């Protein structure tokens, strides 16, 4: 009996992520959702610019590589061209919440029928650890060497809260992948975000609070603890918007 196997929706390519990075877990959860829903053959993924830039090598479905921040626009084009395909973007915090904020907000407000996996690790990883739109107040990074000063650098962007204020989007949730319980929950929520698209419900975004031990300057173990201690208090987990569930409840 097989007790553990690689999802069909992941290729055999070796991941390039750093030790302790949680991208690997999130890739797996996305692939498991695609497998569970039996949509591998009709799914098209959009990779970002950032640490996950080479996600196109890891997902076994058809993939495109977008310009920095433009994944929701590119996904919009793909979905409008092929409405019966399942289209997802996989984006980091710099990509989605800084340079791509306009594309994110407008895809959400159009309730574009796509699934967005938003990996929030509070830092620019690929370029070596600069301040992200989601870096915490006081967080030390290469470009906030004295800690993020909210007086000059402003406050972190709370993407789930921000987007759930819009009338458009179907589903906005925040999960984490720093322990077994959170990973199991993240798996369910990610699968729901894909199921929503299959059901034609519209824009579904899952913010995944994630670890970057390398650029946080921590051991993998410490980074997972830091998520509990610092990240989750600032970025509370939960479902922020579920339009269909709210409509159902109102009946």
């Amino acid at each position, binding site marked *: 009996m097989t007790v553990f196997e690689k999802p069909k929706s992941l290729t055999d390519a070796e991941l390039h992520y750093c030790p302790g990075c949680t991208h690997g877990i999130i890739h797996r959860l996305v692939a498991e959702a695609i497998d569970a829903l039996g949509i591998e053959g009709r799914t098209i993924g959009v990779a970002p610019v950032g640490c996950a830039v080479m996600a196109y090598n890891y997902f076994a479905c*058809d993939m495109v590589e977008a310009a920095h921040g433009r994944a929701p626009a590119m996904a*919009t084009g793909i979905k409008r061209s*092929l409405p019966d395909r399942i289209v997802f973007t996989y984006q980091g915090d710099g990509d989605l919440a800084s340079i791509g904020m306009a594309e994110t907000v407008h895809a959400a407000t159009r309730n574009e029928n796509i699934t967005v996996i938003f990996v929030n690790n509070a830092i620019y990883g690929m370029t070596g650890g600069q301040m992200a739109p989601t870096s915490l107040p006081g967080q030390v990074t290469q470009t906030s060497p004295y800690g993020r000063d909210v007086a000059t650098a402003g406050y972190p962007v709370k993407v789930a809260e921000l987007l759930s204020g819009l009338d458009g989007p179907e589903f906005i949730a925040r999960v984490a992948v720093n322990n077994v319980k959170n990973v199991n929950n993240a798996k369910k929520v990610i699968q729901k975000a894909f199921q929503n698209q299959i059901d034609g419900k519209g824009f579904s975004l899952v913010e995944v609070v994630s670890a970057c031990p390398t650029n946080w300057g921590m051991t993998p173990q410490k980074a997972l603890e830091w998520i509990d201690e610092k990240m989750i208090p600032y970025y509370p987990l939960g479902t922020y918007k579920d339009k269909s569930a709210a409509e159902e409840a109102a009946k």
Partner: protein
Amino acid sequence: MAKVLMKGNEAIAEAAIRAGCRHYFGYPITPQTELAAYMAKRMPKIGGVFLQAESEIAAINMVYGVAATGRRVMTSSSSPGVSLKQEGISYIAGSDLPALIVNVQRGGPGLGGIQPSQSDYFQATKGGGHGDYHLIVLAPCSVQEMADMTALSFDLADKYRVPSMLLADGTIGQMMEPVELPAPQEPVFEEKDWAVTGTKCQRPHHIVNSLYLVPEELEKKNFERFETYRSIEENEVRYEAFRMEDAEYCVVAFGIAARVAKNAIVAARNEGIKVGLIRPITLWPFPKKALADAAKQCKAFLSVELSMGQMIEDVKLAIDCSRPVQLCNRAGGMIPSPDEVLASIRELCRKAQQEV
């Protein structure tokens, strides 16, 4: 087929639909907005997609997405908006995808003005965005050509998997002329061996991408792409020669400037000056050979442009600076009158005779 009276911008839109394009993404900007408005009206009625994007940047990336699936797709804008699209155009070129970008030019730089211009010549013909690449650039000079070249731009883009640009200007975009529209083609959607459409679990995944981290691979990609460009330069050059048979002087002008120049040439001929016109229709590939041949019979060249003089550099290169090349230009939204061009032709002629 009977002719209809249409604005240039609308002729592009209708011609695109007739060429089987069912996906349009745009953003309002003068003087091309009629094109977007026409698409907004027509696309929903024929099962097509019109989407007003949140920005020109988003619009070109939506184009990138549709192009990746292998369908005909277009966007349109005017100069400042086309600057915003350059990032996406570079990615589309770097991913070897066909698409059509329309630029109905206005005066610049910066916000510039809203009157006609040709000052995006460099941007259009030399790449425009970052990296080594070219677009196929067509320059219509009438509403009829707006329609004809829209279809041609799609065909060339598909044939070579190179994005094409229709480089018009505010005059042709806004003016109304009779136009004979091409017969409508039904959109064809063939599965391409490079497009992302879903693997159906029957083939390895397709990746549409412009990232090559290994320099040897990126270099190879660039060399391959320039092989395609070479074949475009060999096969797709288009130009019009007007009164060139016995010409001793050659005017070079495209788009609306060429129409003004024709009037000036007729007037100059009446004065006994043997002058003709070469009108580049493809700005890239540029009609280098036609100009080099003209240099064998002409004493001097005059580049007539609605800019501070951009195409003139390509004219000089095409004739290897073997003859004097003068500039007759207006800029910032101004158009030279036939009299101004005539005066420049007389001046060109006078200088050339002095030199003899």
